[in-house]
């Protein structure tokens, strides 16, 4: 990474460029359908920013972000279903999918989700709280490396199976058919565009928050814990506490992404949050470059874009092409897409020996 992007001017111009693309170029160039798809990709990118922090900076291989993404998504979906039911049948009405399943009485745990304030608070607090509890239990016991990865992945698998068994949460089918988002009709093109703007803005905020954390003293501590946890502990820091914070922030980002995913895509089901989606989240970060600020965003967008573009071109063989692409990126660019400028720089230097003289 060149010095410019770390300077004040660099940060500002980076954000300005991103804002210009997200708020200017994208809505101008993309059709309604493609813009909605882009909003979906941005949700994945928001999860990726959190993984970049926890894994790239904190060294925690979080293979289970689907849990927090799913919590945010289901919490939001419950509110949307309650709002729909209330709009159709007045207060206390039962959501349509329960009616079909023969449920006449609203389960007690659904009742508070009629309130938008409660829902938003739950989206922020529940996944974060769960991550803190899990983090304390795991990191205090100094579980790390592959053991932590296995544990987090098992959690994602268990969560998906748990949801499939919950008929009052739609079971295997999940929750879908949302009509309104905080009082606005979801199938209105103007509102869909607004939803895209909200999602894009959330991405910028999340990236800015991540930048803030990286550049703070805490961020340096986090990297230190990643690289030499024992030494940090001997210096008197609470290494487990440092990790818990990054894990909780990543969980919060994933939850926000999930909450936005539901109105954008219109469905959430266990298939979107289990082990495979959790690995896909991580894959985007790896492809993009986990250590950098912007790498996870670029990677998540690139993976999602490649998936859509390839499957539209080659509906029956795209999975091979995608696999090949992953192998190539990992083999040729171990640092991810974000390392392309550096790699290109090295190649240039190699081809012009006199340049080496000049820079050294």
């Amino acid at each position, binding site marked *: 990474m060149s010095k410019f992007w770390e300077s004040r001017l660099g940060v500002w111009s980076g954000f300005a460029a991103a804002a210009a693309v997200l708020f200017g170029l994208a809505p101008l160039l993309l059709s309604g*359908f493609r813009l909605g798809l882009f909003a979906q990709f941005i949700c994945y990118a928001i999860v990726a920013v959190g993984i970049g922090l926890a894994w790239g900076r904190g060294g925690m291989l979080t293979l289970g972000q689907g849990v927090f993404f799913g919590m945010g998504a289901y919490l939001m979906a419950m509110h949307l279903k309650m709002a729909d039911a209330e709009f159709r049948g007045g207060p206390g009405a039962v959501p349509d999918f329960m009616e079909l399943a023969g449920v006449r009485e609203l389960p007690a745990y659904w009742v508070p989700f009629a309130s938008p304030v409660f829902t938003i608070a739950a989206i922020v607090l529940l996944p974060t709280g769960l991550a803190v509890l899990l983090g304390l239990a795991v990191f205090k016991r100094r579980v790390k490396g592959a053991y932590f990865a296995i544990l987090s992945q098992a959690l994602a698998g268990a969560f998906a199976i748990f949801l*499939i068994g919950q008929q009052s949460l739609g079971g295997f089918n999940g929750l879908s058919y949302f009509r309104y988002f905080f009082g606005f009709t979801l199938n209105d093109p103007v509102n869909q565009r607004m939803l895209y703007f909200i999602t894009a803005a959330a991405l910028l905020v999340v990236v800015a928050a991540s930048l803030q954390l990286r550049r703070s003293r805490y961020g340096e501590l986090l990297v230190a814990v990643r690289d030499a946890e024992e030494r940090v502990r001997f210096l008197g820091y609470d290494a487990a506490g440092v990790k818990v914070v990054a894990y909780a922030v990543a969980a919060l980002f994933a939850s926000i992404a999930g909450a936005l995913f539901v109105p954008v895509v219109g469905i959430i089901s266990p298939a979107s949050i289990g082990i495979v989606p959790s690995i896909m989240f991580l894959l985007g970060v790896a492809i993009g470059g986990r250590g950098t600020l912007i790498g996870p965003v670029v990677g998540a967008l690139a993976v999602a874009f490649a998936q859509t573009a390839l499957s539209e071109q080659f509906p029956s063989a795209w999975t091979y092409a995608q696999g090949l692409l992953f192998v190539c990126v990992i083999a040729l660019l171990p640092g991810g897409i974000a390392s392309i400028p550096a790699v290109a720089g090295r190649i240039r230097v190699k081809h012009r020996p006199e340049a080496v003289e000049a820079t050294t």
Partner: protein
Amino acid sequence: MPHRPEHRPRRAARAIAATAALIVTAGAAAACGARAGEETDAFEPCLDTSGDTVKVGALNSQSGTMAISETTVLDAILLAADQINAAGGVLGKQIEVIDEDGASEPVVFAEKAEKLIREDCVAAVFGGWTSASRKAMLPVFEDYDSLLYYPVQYEGLEASENIFYTGATTNQQIIPALDYLAETGVESLYLVGSDYVFPRTANAIINAYAEAHGIEILGEDYVPLGSTEFSTIVNQVSAAGADAVFNTLNGDSNVAFFREYANVGLTAEQMPVMSVSIAEEEVGGIGVENIVGQLAAWNYYQTVESEANAAFVEAFKAEYGADRVTSDPMEAAYNAVHLWAATVEKAASFAVDDVQEAAGGVSFEGPEGTVVIDGENNHVSKTARIGEIRSDGLLYTVWESEGPIEPDPFLDGYEWAADLAVAE
């Protein structure tokens, strides 16, 4: 370190503040659209019929766990389109099938459905298999007022103006299966199913039927989708000594279940198993020796004796190979394309409104017999058939309903089912 780190957070904080300001500006710039209850602008369909072709979509899983089943449906859709094209097309236009991969994921089904409608401007889409995929696509087809032809038997309790259901609903598959079992003297049942909406709904119906008809339910067990651990359940089934087992397991679980069933020495003579998700395609995977003599409930088997079916099987084998088999969902998808074409011809228009209006009463002489679209609920009338699995791996009809059964997705015509679901 050349400078104090404390300075840096403030800079980032300012970046956040600026971002927030930007959001407010953007929010102000973008006017808000319709609120709940207000009318929204209708989506303008972009279907272009000026050329000599008409586009339709085929949306099936070509990757993921469902690919093995759903690619066979795609084959049947392509075959039907080829046949219609060879006979001169629809309203004189050749059908151009655009296939997309649903990837066994509901979210992808929704995405590709929207792509087919809004980018490719198709006249109709054929596809979907799991209820999850149909539920994911339903709002898309309603929002953009387009047509989906869904070709798989399902749990009923649904009737969208934008979906034509060419597979069986519960009164064309599960209830006839129960009638058959009751007729053959079955007085007790054991229920085994995968844990998701179809088996749950099916078993709710079976329980209500059993209560009304004096059949005893000796057990009801669910396993997670994809589970292959059946020793406990099969032992319980064996110990319960029911007259028959009603099986709503899905996919790989059937393989493990029937192997275990045969392992403990249970046979079709002692305790027959009635299955609703096992067709010609699945028998090979389970192993004929493990399942021979067992029963299945569908509307179509490859062995159905009719002229239309002989022609269908012959055309399919000629196109895709002599070793391939035809099954119920494939046949329903094949019918779907022909029914759509017949409806378009009747309406003399590809427009969604015209097709919806003309659909009621449209019929097609399909391999299973005559199928007729019910204009009330967009399902089709179908002949119910109980099949027995024989040693050649095919299913043979041992009982069939007297003519096609009218679709009744909400079971309004069954008194004992009154408590099952709310009215439409």
